[in-house]
C-alpha cells in the first residue's frame, strides 16, 4: 500500500513536470488553470494538444507494458519472461517494416502490421520451445535464436529501402513518443479500460498458478483456461502499447521485478507493475525530451540503456551469490 501511494505521488509529480517543462516553460499554476478550462489560447494549445496527449500516451503505454510484463513473468515462472525476450518485439518490428517499406500506408496500417508480426512471432517461439512442456530457459533461447533471424531480415529490409523510408523505420524501431496526439492516446485508453480490469479479476487465480499447477488445480483453479486467458490479455496489452509507441524496450522486463524488490513480497503485483511501468516511461520520455533539447531523442534509446544497465546489475548480483 505504502509503495503504491508513493508511486502514485511520484507519478503525479512526473506528470506535472512534463506538462510544465519544455522549450516554452509554463508555471504549474497556469497549467492547472488551463486544465480547468482557462488560460490563453496559445498556452492552451501547447498543453492540451501537445503535452497532455503525449504524457498520457507515455503513462498508458508504460502501464500496459508493466502489466503485460508482470503477467508474462508470472506465467513463465521466470523473471525474464517478457514480451521483449520471447520475440514479440522483433516480430512486431518485422511486421511494421513490411508495412512501411513494402506495402506502404498510414500510421494505422503500420500499427496493424506490428501487431500481426508480433503475434505470429510469439506464437512461433511458444510452439518451437514447447517440447513436453515449456521450459523457461528453452523459451528464452529459442526467442534469442528467432530474434537473431528476424533482426537480420530487418537489417536487410532497411538496407534496401529508400533513405527516407529507412529513417522513419529507424525511428519506429527504436520506440518513440515524439508527436503522439489524442489519436494515439484514445484507442490505447479504451484498450486499457477493458484489459486492466480483466487482468485484475484474474489476479487471484494467477497467484495460485504461481504456486504450481497441481496446487492451483486442487484449490479449484482451471489452470489451462486461466493460463490461456492471461496470455491473451498480456499479448493484447503489448500489442496495444506497440501500436501506439513502437517497440519500447525493457519496460515490461523491469517494472514487475523492481516492484517485487520495492514491496519485498513474492507474489505478482499487477497494479504496482502497471504504476511503476507508467512512472518509468513518463520519466524516460521526460529525459528523452530534455536531455539534448531542442533535439528530441526517441524514448526507446533511454529505456534501452536503462534496461541493459538493469540486466547487468541483475547478472552481477546473481553471480556473487553461489548459484
Amino acid at each position, binding site marked *: 500500500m505504502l509503495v503504491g501511494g508513493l508511486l502514485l505521488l511520484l507519478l503525479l509529480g512526473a506528470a506535472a513536470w512534463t506538462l510544465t517543462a519544455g522549450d516554452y516553460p509554463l508555471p504549474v499554476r497556469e497549467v492547472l488553470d488551463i486544465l480547468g478550462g482557462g488560460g490563453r489560447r496559445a498556452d492552451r494549445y501547447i498543453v492540451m494538444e501537445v503535452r497532455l496527449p503525449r504524457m498520457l500516451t507515455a503513462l498508458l503505454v508504460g502501464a500496459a507494458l508493466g502489466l503485460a510484463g508482470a503477467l508474462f513473468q508470472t506465467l513463465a515462472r521466470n523473471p525474464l519472461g517478457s514480451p521483449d525476450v520471447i520475440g514479440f518485439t522483433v516480430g512486431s518490428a518485422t511486421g511494421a517494416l513490411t508495412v512501411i517499406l513494402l506495402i506502404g500506408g498510414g500510421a494505422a496500417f503500420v500499427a496493424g502490421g506490428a501487431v500481426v508480426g508480433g503475434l505470429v512471432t510469439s506464437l512461433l517461439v511458444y510452439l518451437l520451445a514447447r517440447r513436453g512442456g515449456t521450459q523457461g530457459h528453452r523459451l528464452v533461447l529459442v526467442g534469442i535464436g528467432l530474434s537473431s533471424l528476424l533482426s537480420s531480415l530487418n537489417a536487410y529490409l532497411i538496407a534496401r529501402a529508400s*533513405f527516407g523510408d529507412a529513417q522513419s523505420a529507424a525511428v519506429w524501431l527504436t520506440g518513440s513518443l515524439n508527436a503522439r496526439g489524442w489519436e494515439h492516446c484514445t484507442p490505447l485508453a479504451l484498450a486499457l479500460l477493458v484489459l486492466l480490469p480483466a487482468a485484475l479479476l484474474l489476479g487471484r487465480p494467477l497467484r495460485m498458478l504461481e504456486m504450481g499447477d497441481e496446487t492451483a488445480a486442487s484449490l479449484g483453479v482451471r489452470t489451462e483456461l486461466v493460463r490461456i486467458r492471461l496470455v491473451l490479455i498480456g499479448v493484447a496489452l503489448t500489442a496495444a502499447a506497440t501500436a501506439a509507441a513502437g517497440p519500447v524496450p525493457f519496460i515490461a522486463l523491469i517494472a514487475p521485478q523492481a516492484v517485487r524488490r520495492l514491496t519485498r513480497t513474492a507474489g505478482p503485483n499487477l497494479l504496482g507493475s502497471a504504476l511503476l511501468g507508467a512512472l518509468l516511461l513518463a520519466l524516460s520520455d521526460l529525459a528523452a525530451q530534455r536531455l539534448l533539447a531542442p533535439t528530441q531523442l*526517441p524514448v526507446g534509446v533511454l529505456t534501452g540503456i536503462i534496461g541493459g544497465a538493469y540486466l*547487468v546489475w541483475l547478472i552481477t548480483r546473481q553471480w556473487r551469490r553461489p548459484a
Partner: protein
Amino acid sequence: MSTDTPARPTAPSRRATTARRSAWLLGALAALAVLAVLSLGIGARTIAPGQVLHVLLHREPTAEDWIVVHHSRIPRTLLGITVGAALGVAGAMMQALTRNPLADPGLLGINGGAAAAVAAGTALFDLRTFHSFVWFALLGAAVAALVVQLLGGSAAATPARLALAGTAVTAVLTAFVNGLILLDPLTLNRFRYWQIGTFAGVDSAAVGQVLPFLLAGGLLALVLGRPLNALALGDDTGRALGAHPARTRALSLLAITLLCGAATAAVGPIAFVGLAVPHLARHLCGPDQRWIMLLSAALAPVLLLASDILGRLLLRPAELQVGVVTAFVGAPLFIALVRGRRIAQL
C-alpha cells in the same frame, strides 16, 4: 559438458581416429576448392569453370572475364575464405573457453561492440575508409568481449548466464547505436549498409589490410590448442598438467578479438557461422580442440562461401547479402540445438 572431456584413445583406435579426422579435413578442403571455383564463376556475369581456370592461368588484362575475376571475384572469394575461417576458429575457441556449446561471437556481444564502435566512429570522426573501420571495430570488439566475459562470471559462467550477459550488453549497445543513427542521417545511411554483412564491393586492398589481423589471431589460436585441451578438464587438473588457466584465457580472448573484430570490420556482423560450424566439427572429429579448430577453419568458409554463392543466385542479377543468408541457415540450426535434450539439461 561431457563432450568436452578429451577422449582416451587406445593405440590402434587413435590411428583410426586420426585417419577419420584427416579424411574429414581433406573432404572439407576439397569442398572448399570446388566452392572457390564456383564463387569465381557465379554472379551477375556467369563464367564457366573452364574459362575461370583459363583467366587464372593466362594474363589478359583487357578481356572482360579477366577483369571481373581478378578485380571483383578473387578478392571477394579470398575474403570469404579468410573471414569464414576466422569466424569458425573464433567460435570454436569461444565455446572451449567458456565450456559452453552456445557461445558465439555474435550472440556474446562482440559483433555488437564492433558495430557500436563503427557507428560511433562514423558519427564522430566521419570514418569512410576501410582502414579506419578496422581499428574501431577491433577496439569495440575487445571492450564488449571483456565486459560480457566479466558479467558472465568467467569461470562460473553457465550458457544461459552468458547468453543473458551478451543480450544485456547488446541491448545497451543497440540503444547507443540507435541514438547515434537517429541524430545523424549520414551515419544511418552508411551504417545500414555495413550492419547487414556483405562481401559485395571489396577489393584486394581491403583483403590485404584485414589479413595481418586474421593471421595473427589464427596463429595464436593454433598455439593455444593444447592449453585449451588441458583447461577442458577443469582449472585444477589443467594446472596439474602444466597449463596456466588465467594466461590461456587472456590469450584466447585476445585471439578471438583479433579474429572477430577484423572479420566484422571487413564484412559487417555475420551471425551463426561461429556457432554452428564448431558444433559440426566437434560432432565429426571428437573433443580434441586442435582438430576442432582446424576442421572449423576449413568448414566455416565452406558454409560462408556457399551462403554467398546462394545469395548471388537467389536474386539474380541483384544479390542477397551473405549475412542474411547465413542467419536464415544458422538460426533454424540454433533452434534445433536448443530443442535438443542436451542443451535443455544444462
